[in-house]
């Protein structure tokens, strides 16, 4: 969607503007901000619905990580694909999913993207290129490589983005997937959202290197570290990686340094990090606030415009929740449907 505007960039203020402003037109930029709000408010709506007992199970919220989801997906088309993670709501929205059907899924309804079978941990919208969140840390890594193999074999020109966390980088799947992507020069971009912790375990305690991107050297692929809460930085690294991938030069590993505001899941006592650390990220490096400030500074939007976006997003979220509430539950008689493909 946003990607369509790629070639119609307006270049508002000359050449030493950040990449984002050189490359995308204002409408696209405002669209990106809107998506960030949509993600944040979606997460808040989901959280509240969970508190109220409308959503069961567990959930992993991506509040604080909106810039990486949006910055990465900005230049992608619906044909480009992503694999996502347990913390995947933001990716799903950034890639173009409809929040109503996402809420419906979380509410376990037939109108949900997975007809109520998947829930938060398996949220997917295949029509916009999201092959699905994954309950298995690292589970999506080889799948993304396989999708990229399809892109290469069919010469589709598509790229595949593989989101994963810092914790996932210690899984064997990470190693095997990156190695294969590299030797076969596949059009896949590995995006590590390094929020400092895998559940309670900090990168320092779990990972032998300081930066996940340092590991790119082990696969002879570029490893790029970006300020993951700055949309422009993320988008620029992603743009370069995409170009490289589409030219057949192979994969890139992008590490987005970011932070999650909430606990790991709904059962986190938050004992492994300090209030101060959380505070600092929330007040000093909030991705939405920083992006809003930048957009205002560059005259892309004004306060009224921002308010309008927020209000519009709030309406969309409220409607989404309403839709989800009113949607029907699956029929237990269909329990064993979708296990196998129905054959004619």
């Amino acid at each position, binding site marked *: 969607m946003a990607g369509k505007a790629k070639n119609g960039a307006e270049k508002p203020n000359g050449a030493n503007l950040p990449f984002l402003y050189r490359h995308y037109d204002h409408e696209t930029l405002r669209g990106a901000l809107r998506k960030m709000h949509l993600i944040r408010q979606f997460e808040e709506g989901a959280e509240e619905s969970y508190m109220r007992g409308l959503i069961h199970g567990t959930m992993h919220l991506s509040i604080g990580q909106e810039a990486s989801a949006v910055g990465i997906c900005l230049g992608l088309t619906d044909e480009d694909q992503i694999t996502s993670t347990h913390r995947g709501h933001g990716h799903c929205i950034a890639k173009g999913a409809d929040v109503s059907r996402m809420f419906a899924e979380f509410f*376990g309804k037939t109108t949900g993207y997975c007809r109520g*079978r998947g829930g938060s941990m398996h949220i997917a919208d295949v029509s916009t290129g999201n092959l699905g969140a994954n*309950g*298995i*840390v690292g589970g999506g890594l080889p799948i993304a490589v396989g999708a990229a193999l399809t892109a290469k074999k069919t010469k589709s020109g598509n790229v595949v983005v593989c989101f994963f966390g810092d914790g996932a980088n210690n899984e064997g799947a990470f190693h095997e997937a990156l190695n294969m992507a590299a030797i076969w020069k596949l059009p896949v971009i590995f995006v590590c959202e390094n929020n400092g912790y*895998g559940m309670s375990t900090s990168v320092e305690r*779990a990972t032998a290197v300081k930066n996940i991107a340092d590991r790119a050297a082990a696969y002879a692929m570029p490893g790029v570290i970006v300020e993951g809460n700055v949309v422009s930085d993320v988008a620029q690294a992603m743009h370069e990686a995409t170009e490289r991938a589409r030219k057949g030069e192979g994969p890139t590993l992008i590490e987005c340094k970011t932070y999650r505001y909430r606990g790991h899941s709904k059962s986190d006592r938050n004992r492994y990090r300090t209030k101060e650390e959380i505070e600092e990220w929330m007040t000093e490096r909030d991705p939405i606030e920083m992006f809003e400030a930048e957009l205002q500074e560059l005259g892309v939007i004004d306060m009224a415009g921002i308010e309008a976006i927020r209000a519009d997003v709030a309406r969309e979220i409220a409607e989404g929740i309403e839709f989800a509430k009113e949607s029907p539950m699956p029929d237990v008689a269909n329990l064993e449907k979708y296990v196998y493909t129905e054959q004619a």
Partner: protein
Amino acid sequence: MDAIIETATRELSYAQAIQEAMAIAMERDERVFLMGEDIGVYGGAFQVTGDLVERFGPERVMDTPISELGGAGVAVGAAVTGLRPIFEFQFSDFATLAMEQIVNQAAKMRYMLGGAVSVPVVMRFPAGSGTGAAAQHSQSLEAWLGHVPGLKVIQPATPHDAKGLLLAAIEDPDPVMIFEHKLLYKMKGPVPEGHYTVPIGKADVRREGRDLTIVATSIMVHKALEAAETLSGEGIDIEVIDLRTVRPMDRQTVIDSVRKTSRLMCVYEAVKTLGIGAEVSAMIAESEAFDYLDAPIVRLGGAETPIPYNPELEKATVPQVDGIVQAARDLVTGAR
């Protein structure tokens, strides 16, 4: 129930019972230590290790990176060189990542080396559905490991047995795999203080009866007992056996019961096909108890589907008390 239980008054939850077993073992034997993801300051995904890291320190309550294959392998390597690791999988589903080390290494090392080593490792697997965590966080995979010689596989159903079987497992010279149903963690029950063991390989007759033997595992023991209670009101008298150990299976206890009741039903949460009930059924059908059977052997197992997210669907995927009551009644009254 064992005599021990009768005299115990103190109640602990299943999770607390496991924690206590680990604490006792660590106090008694300095070779014992814990490994797993987020078992330290987080206390474990299900708070089973809880505050043990504060008591025993991070060297004995070791957080591992998210590396199930490697982590399990490290535990195997530590065990074979003289330590007594207890490795916690965060969810039993992640055993899929570590089957290599569990099945090719831990289970076979002693045999392949002609008895030159033992592999005293314990692995704990939080298992089962009912938490709304969907298909990749709800599986019951004990049948896979039950199929593997060299392993011992247990499924405690009560806090008492969780503690006693875990202590037996830790002291066992061979690899022991423990499947703990997540919905049991909060269930309370009497647990004796101090050290005791429950023998691996012994089933427990939880309720005596003459009309039908129900062999149940893990959480299904409680559902079967509830069903039995209901049916006793209808004059149907059910014997409920808690299998407790999947491998080696306690043939004799089941055979003796079936010889008495002439009817057998197996209730288990895992996918019905090739689940534990298949083995229990086949074991009886080839035993001397066959001649005593008055009715087909019925299995109530999980549906032939991944576990769905929607709670109603999820519930429908695994046996519930109503279903057990109905099936047992039909079996005893011959309506089947």
